[in-house]
């Protein structure tokens, strides 16, 4: 299990727990976290689960694969710490991860 903190665009934090092996997107969808749509259901095909990884966690989370980088082209206000949350797999290492969600996905 890992705790994931989602910070919305207004600065409000919601903390959820998720089992290892699930994705950060699933943690958001199962807990109705606002700001994550995940239209394609996790196929890395839509860029509506875009999040910003907290600077302190960027190294542990890693960078996007070329396929994810391509999909990020469909996102808005993409920054160096942008990731698609369906491509971040939860593990003990990511317990306490902080990500923020954009105001709108699309």
């Amino acid at each position, binding site marked *: 299990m890992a705790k994931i903190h989602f910070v919305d665009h207004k600065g409000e934090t919601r903390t959820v727990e998720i089992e290892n092996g699930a994705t950060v997107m699933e943690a958001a969808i199962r807990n109705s976290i606002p700001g994550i749509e995940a239209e394609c259901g996790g196929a890395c095909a839509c860029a509506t689960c875009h999040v910003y990884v907290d600077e302190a966690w960027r190294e542990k989370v890693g960078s996007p694969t070329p396929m994810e*980088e391509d999909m990020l*082209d469909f996102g808005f206000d993409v920054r160096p710490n942008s990731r698609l949350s369906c491509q971040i797999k939860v593990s003990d290492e990511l317990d306490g991860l902080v990500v923020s969600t954009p105001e709108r996905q*699309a």
Partner: protein
Amino acid sequence: MSDVIKTDVLIIGAGPCGLFAAFELGLLDMKAHFVDILDKVGGQCAELYPEKPIYDIPGIPHVSGQGLTDALMEQIKPFHPTFHLGEMIETVEKIGDPAFRCTTDAGKVFECKVLVIAAGGGSFQPKRPPVPGIEAYEGTSVHYAVRKMETFRDKNVLIVGGGDSALDWTLNLHPLAKRITLLHRRDDFRAAPHSVERMRALVADGKMDLRIGQVTALSGADGQLTGATVKGNDNNVSEIACDTMLPFFGLTMKLGPVANWGIALENNLVPVETSAFETNVPGIFAIGDINTYPGKIKLILCGFHEGALMSQKAHRYVYPDKRLVFQYTTSSSSLQKKLGVN
């Protein structure tokens, strides 16, 4: 009013579940017409992941989204379904018990006994960049598709994106437009390599501009755009003068007009019972990703099953006086005759 198209079944959405439903309906002698907002069949499979592999279609170890679409089109060919692409059903009116009159946004009118909503995540619509005030320019200065190239003659066009749409229109509009600026968030393009090469050659010859960055604001008045504020990857902010903008950020899915047809909805999904996947309105069914019921999972294979059960019930509405005898395609000569294999 245009001529009314009469059909046994009208299927909204030509994705994999809708397409296979035409097969199951066809075996039971029901004729289907399709309406889909996309300009091609295949739904998400063709639009979102034509080249991505799918590994969970029973009996097919792996197939691409486009491959599955092509195979389904081949499979339903004997039943000659009719496709009305690039249109969206806007209104549904009950005219019988059951019978429905459905009208598209292009004014086409259908009368059907059974309506099948196989609309997946809803209708695909272009993604609108969340730039403040962009709505004020839509339709006048901001366009999400090129309908007529002439619209762009002698314009200062800002094209945003890095895929095939962005690159194709950069190259096609370049001879017509006064000046083209292509803006993308990184100096890497998903578009076909030869298009990227041609674009880079035009830039090298000084015939167009390539900028790296993202739009943060628009300026102009009364729907007429005069420029875009762009933040570069170095966080430097600059202005690009333009009177027309074409953003290409792919498509998003919106439930759309389904919400206005008097069908019960639950979290933007259509609740159905699980013996025939019928909605709360008799004669209107919902199959595939758009429906919900206890235990629902959004898999193509589940949508196939839903289409088969739906067809059994639809038969009762289309042929109220005929008794349906269940038959297998492996052994029934009458089914094989319909399939054109016997």
